[in-house]
């Protein structure tokens, strides 16, 4: 033991940083944190999109090439139409009766049934409308696909018949098409993939920020209580304010890292050029520098808010298990506004700017659709900052309560 009993030198003001650095470094040494903060946000979204993409590609391919067996009621009464139907590719038509038709669709021996009226051929030849019914099982994907394909084919055949009728009457085919509308996407607007991104990104980002911070916050206070290490920290000259702020900044930083990686993870499918993501990227993503800036900035109040809430909860709980119990309903509370942003328009009513989480996610949506509402953004930032300050004040106050910190 070296020579003793001197009052050590004192270096004030740096203890928040000391606690922050220790917590931030230690948290990334845990495999569970690495998974929830790094691996999960970075890889889960691309993997899901890749899986979804391959499934969709497979289904689309099958839907285009699969031959559907479709029943026809009244085939004998309409030989002209039946002959025309028999020529259609990727369909096999089988005669059936009205009383068996529904049962056959239900049992899936037939994908759908076309019911031709008694006067089908007569109507067709005399220039009248043939009223065709298609029996379909709405709960069966194949049945709906068969019906949709029949609908397209009847429309195409119908157009040809109209053209022939007009020609026979000495009229141009354009006579039946007074308008032809062509959609021309503007160069600065978002592509189809931007719409998907605008739906997914705010939700993913909020969930990643919250989910990433859960383990860090739980470990840093409830975990320390459980392991008895908090008491040793409380007997150091670091004030409780220093300790809680150091831990708070560490949790906020973890939330921020997690949400940033989630953004990167979500961008991979759109910008990697990999074949498995072709179905997404071909829609075209438009991300302006301002949109990227907004996405980055909006994460800050979100991370601060989540860190405050998570730390307060972890401080209140007696151990990590109890903290987990409190977290379950809270996660739903966070998920709800995050999910709501998927369905709300980016140019939502301004009072929405006061709703925590939802306000941030709507700003991201605005960023992606290049339709910024300055007032909305200002209100949202002020509200988020106020909520974050409230959460942090609550956590700091809890940290002053000895009954909450120490088991007596």
């Amino acid at each position, binding site marked *: 033991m070296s020579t003793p009993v001197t*009052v*050590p030198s004192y270096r004030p003001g740096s203890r928040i940083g000391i606690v922050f650095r220790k917590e931030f470094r230690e948290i990334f040494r845990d495999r569970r944190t690495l998974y929830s903060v790094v691996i999960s946000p970075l890889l889960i979204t691309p993997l899901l999109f890749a899986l979804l993409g391959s499934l969709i590609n497979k289904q689309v391919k099958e839907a285009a090439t699969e031959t559907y067996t479709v029943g026809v009621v009244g085939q004998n009464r309409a030989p002209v139409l039946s002959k025309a139907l028999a020529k259609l590719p990727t369909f096999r038509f089988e005669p059936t009766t009205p009383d068996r038709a529904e049962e056959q669709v239900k049992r899936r021996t037939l994908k759908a049934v076309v019911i031709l009226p008694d006067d089908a051929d007569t109507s067709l030849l005399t220039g009248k409308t043939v009223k065709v019914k298609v029996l379909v099982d709405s709960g069966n994907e194949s049945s709906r696909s068969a019906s949709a394909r029949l609908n397209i084919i009847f429309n195409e055949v119908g157009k040809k018949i109209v053209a022939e009728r007009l020609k026979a009457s000495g009229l141009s085919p354009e006579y039946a098409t007074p308008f032809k509308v062509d959609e021309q996407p503007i160069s600065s607007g978002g592509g189809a993939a931007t719409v998907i991104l605008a739906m997914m990104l705010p939700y993913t980002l909020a969930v990643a920020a919250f989910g990433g911070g859960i383990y860090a916050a739980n470990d840093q206070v409830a975990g320390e209580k459980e392991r008895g290490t908090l008491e040793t920290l409380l007997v150091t000259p670091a004030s409780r304010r220093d300790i809680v702020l150091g831990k708070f900044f560490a949790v906020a930083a973890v939330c921020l890292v997690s949400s940033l990686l989630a953004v990167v993870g979500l961008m991979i499918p759109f910008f990697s050029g990999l074949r498995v993501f072709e179905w997404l990227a071909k829609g075209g993503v438009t991300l302006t520098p301002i949109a990227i800036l907004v996405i980055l900035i909006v994460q800050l109040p979100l991370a601060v808010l989540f860190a405050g809430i998570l730390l307060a909860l972890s401080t209140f709980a007696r151990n990590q298990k109890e903290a987990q119990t409190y977290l379950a309903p809270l996660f739903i509370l966070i998920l709800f506004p995050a999910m709501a942003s998927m369905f709300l328009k980016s140019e939502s009513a301004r009072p929405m700017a006061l709703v925590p989480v939802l306000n941030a996610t709507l700003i991201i949506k605005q960023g992606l659709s290049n339709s910024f509402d300055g007032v909305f953004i200002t209100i949202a930032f002020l509200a988020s900052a106020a909520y974050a300050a409230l959460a942090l004040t609550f956590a700091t106050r809890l940290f002053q309560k000895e009954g909450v910190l120490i088991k007596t």
Partner: protein
Amino acid sequence: MIQVNDLRKTFEDKKRGTIHAVDGVSFECCPGEIFGLLGPNGAGKTTILRILATILTPTSGTASVAGADIRTQPALVRQRIGFLTGSAAPYERMTAREMVGYFGALYGLTASEIAERSKSLFDELDMNDFADGRCDKLSTGQKQRVNIARTLIHQPSVLFFDEPTSGLDVVSSRTVKRTIRRCRDEGRTIVFSTHIMSEVEALCDRIAVIYQGKIAAIGTLEELREQTGKVAFEHVFLKLIDEEEDE
């Protein structure tokens, strides 16, 4: 130096009502002395130490620790004390060196001071073999040595030991006791809390027997034997708390 004057701490419990965890405790402890707090579980020993370490605030009463008042100068008290409990584990994902360095930094030591003092403590506590290994890989005894180094890194003048040998084997217990004696020999003021009679007999210069939040008796081992007329310290203790001896 520690001076404790009529210290009281009450807790409110929904089921049990008001609990007097510490009920009018007064004592003094001088530099170079090991002062024992002996009592059964729940007697109030840990609460007394937590109040003196400023983790808890007293309901009433005063105390001065290393020349600082626990009520008005809690930060100064914490700067001058070391607190070791048997129930606290070191940080699992830190190495012993990082753990000691972290606490050194919190006590305001410079990097060179931390390095110098760590080296000295690691040599004395025979920690060099595991100083750079993660704490979760260490044995219980090695973990407690890390805790001792963490407690002593800032060379505190007052030390509180709260059942520091809890869960340790004989060899590790001996290391802890040896450290406590050395600290006493260096002139530090030591309060040692335990419920193990043999540790009190082996270590303490004076003893306060704590029972139900109060000091049942205070004095040297010999004084307490004289007071009770008993020789075996277990019998002395039971006599002092008015429990029937199991002869």
